[in-house]
């Protein structure tokens, strides 16, 4: 670019070129960082902590409760973190629950029936997760089926595959050592927690710190505009679905290790809490963007709620109720913060109040 021409441009443009950046902006950044709308889940966590600490102090305030919470929730959290990638790229993967289910049953079958070595079984299972991602991608980008429908169908195919592999039976007789992967402990916390943290850190790095992550978000925000800016959106979607499939498969094989059995029924149960965590997570930290650490926090906040209610002796259907309500709340919250003006409109419509004179004016 030639210097004289660009300087002329800058001179032709009106208004101040540099705004009052610097101190004011970082003060606003700090204020924004701790604002309720940015970290509402943390405030919610604090609130629930106080409530349950007062309600069921004997059980809620024990190290054991928290340790098991951390470990039990690790797999849900892991699968949710994997799902962040496709959702950020603008495709939803409704097969994520059954992908985890497939991982759980496949690793058990490989170990118990085929007697493969542990490492080989794990790798094959992860590859199977990747293959499911590739298949979903083919359906979405080549057959041009909307991701919602395509992955719903894939989910059903996977359910069939799980039933077929397992004969609708639990697969037991796993090798003795395999259980260590899911229930072995380090510093009082099980391995899956560390695995989840490593995967979350990796995906955070990819999404927030690399060009690929930027391409993922651009594809999610506007596939047309992203493609015209040179983003190979189809490859990005492939990447997202493969990551999701592999991470879900990893979640499944950890679960099998934890249970010491391959259970054909575990998969679908993950779908709702995972989606709830991703959407609630999108309202945290990053101003409405789907993001990894928001999802991790959201998954644990939801788990604390469920755990507290269970400890308080509420019935067995509480987790489903809580997750469903949390999903509605999370998505509602995301829509709420997107359009501040829609809030008043909605309230006005709900209360049947209308502006007294004309729009925007004072009566």
């Amino acid at each position, binding site marked *: *670019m*030639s210097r004289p*021409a*660009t300087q*002329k*441009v*800058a001179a*032709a*443009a*009106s*208004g*101040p*070129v*540099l*705004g009052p950046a610097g101190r004011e902006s970082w003060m606003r950044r700090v204020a924004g960082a701790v604002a309720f709308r940015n970290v509402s889940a943390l405030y919610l966590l604090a609130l629930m902590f106080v409530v349950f600490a007062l309600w069921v102090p004997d059980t809620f305030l024990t190290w054991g409760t928290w340790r098991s919470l951390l470990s039990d929730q690790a797999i849900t959290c892991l699968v949710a973190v994997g799902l962040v990638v496709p959702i950020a790229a603008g495709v939803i993967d409704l097969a994520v629950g059954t992908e985890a289910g497939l991982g759980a049953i496949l690793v058990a079958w490989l170990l118990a029936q085929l007697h493969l070595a542990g490492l080989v079984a794990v790798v094959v299972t992860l590859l199977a997760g990747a293959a499911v991602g590739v298949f979903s991608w083919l359906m979405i980008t080549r057959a041009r089926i909307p991701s919602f429908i395509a992955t719903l169908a894939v989910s059903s195919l996977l359910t069939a595959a799980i039933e077929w592999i397992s004969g609708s039976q639990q697969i037991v007789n796993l090798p003795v050592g395999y259980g260590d992967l899911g229930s072995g402990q380090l510093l009082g916390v099980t391995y899956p927690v560390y695995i989840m943290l490593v995967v979350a850190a990796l995906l955070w*790095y*990819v999404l927030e*710190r*690399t*060009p*690929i*992550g*930027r*391409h993922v*978000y*651009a594809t999610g*925000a*506007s596939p*047309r*505009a*992203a*493609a*015209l*800016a*040179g*983003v*190979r959106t189809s490859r990005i979607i492939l990447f997202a679905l493969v990551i999701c499939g592999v991470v879900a498969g990893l979640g499944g094989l950890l679960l099998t290790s934890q249970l010491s059995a391959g259970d054909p029924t575990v998969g679908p149960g993950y779908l709702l809490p995972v989606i709830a965590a991703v959407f609630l997570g999108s309202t945290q930290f990053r101003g409405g963007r789907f993001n990894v650490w928001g999802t991790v926090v959201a998954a644990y906040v939801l788990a604390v709620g469920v755990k507290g209610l269970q400890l308080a002796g509420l019935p067995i259907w509480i987790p489903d109720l809580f997750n469903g309500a949390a999903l509605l709340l999370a998505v509602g919250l995301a829509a709420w913060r997107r359009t501040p*003006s829609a809030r*008043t*409109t909605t309230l006005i419509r709900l209360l049947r109040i*209308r*502006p*007294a*004179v*004309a*729009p*925007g*004016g*004072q*009566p």
Partner: protein
Amino acid sequence: MSDSGGGADAVAAAPPLLRVRGMSKTFPGLKALDGVSLEIRAGEIVAVLGHNGSGKSTLVKILAGVYQADPGSLVEVRDAAGEVVSGPSAREELHFIHQDLGLADILSTVENLGLGRATRGWGLGPVHGSAERRHAEQLISRFGASFDPTIPVGKLSPAQRAIVAIARAMDGWTRPDNVLILDEPTAALHGDEVQVLFEAVRRVAESGAGVVFISHRLDEVLSLADRVVVLRDGQVVAEAPTSELDHDRMVELIVGGAVAEVALTPQDGRGEPVLEVTGLCGGEIRDLSLTLRAGEIVGVAGILGSGREQLASMLFGARYRTGQVDVAGEELVAGDPAGAIAAGLAYVPADRRRDGAVMEMSVRENLTLPLMRPLRRRFGRLDARGERIEARRWMQTVGLHPPNPEQPLKLFSGGNQQKVVLAKWLRVRPRVLLLDEPAQGVDVGAKAAIYELILAVRHRGAGVLLCSSDTKELVQLCDRVLVLKEGRVISEVPRDSLTEARLVRDELDLHSRPT
């Protein structure tokens, strides 16, 4: 449209249909409107002019109820008899056509037209398909258009979409004393269509309605409006009857000082061919060939449907095509924008909101999106610091306002969005810059800045292909202009004989074929 509105004397005496007094609107860090007052009388066409970011769109959005004005602002709506209309019916007196048209892209024209109409009863009554279709065809034919009203609006051209929006606002017009507010309706229309629209707008005004017309095209304003209100930085800086104004005076008022016309320095000599197209086919284009050399700006003119609107996106690979496209001697693969960028093409689409940039993302993220390799560090890390510095530099180069690279692009005015789109392509240093209506819906000041940027690209030795429906723009900027008709180049006008009259004549093919 009935003629029950008052006569000429009644119009002069009656209180205004719409009165805005002391309207302000403060956004965080920005006072978009500052004590704006405005009156619209029955039968009057009032043009509101101003820079992008002068507050025009904010004013419209407040009237439409999208934004809430600051306390102390007054808006008063009256009917023809001078009675103040209050409550829910006040908003029903105002009809809007927004810049982004507000159409549901996946629905057909028929369905979009039905959206504005009140449903009777519970909304469960049968929809009369053929009757609605006939009604829709009738409405759009009033604007001289004829297209299938049953295909999704998203598949229509920008001009056709604008027509649907206008037809919708005028449909369901129950009383003549309403106010029609048009926010840049002509941005995507070509000469003839603009005239058809103006005729319709004049008829609306004659029937006793008030019309507020917002446009960047000053010539249009001169030929249509009775009165002009000029906004600058959220304030009314001038208000005068159109008869007291001319083009230069309006530009001065808008910019707040005279701006120099863009001067195209004559070319020093022809460069190497950078873009060679042979036998291009696809869409409306039939067997088109052209050569673009380094350091020249080649205009592409043509009426709607001539293939002019499709050419740039087709060359870039965003649209199906056959034929050979070479960039600097290297053949491009069709249907691969990323490959086209790597070969040295850059493309500024006409539809900025949908195609031009990712509106949800920040200026910084949009700027670096097409080319991130230079910012990649070890382990695939993106150099965040380097990216911020670069974003800040480009922001200053193009004079972005407000100067905040972290703000999502959708919060900027149209002209500033376009500056970002151009900046992101200048950053990749293209060999060939494909432009599709680069100054569409952009105010005078931003337009001058955009033209300067285009000239800077030419000066640097890239070839520029400028597809535009604005003949003035073509005459101002181009070294030569290719005129398209029915998908072919029918004439090439060199710089010496380049005039608006010549282009319009060629576009309509008036001299070559006497019948």
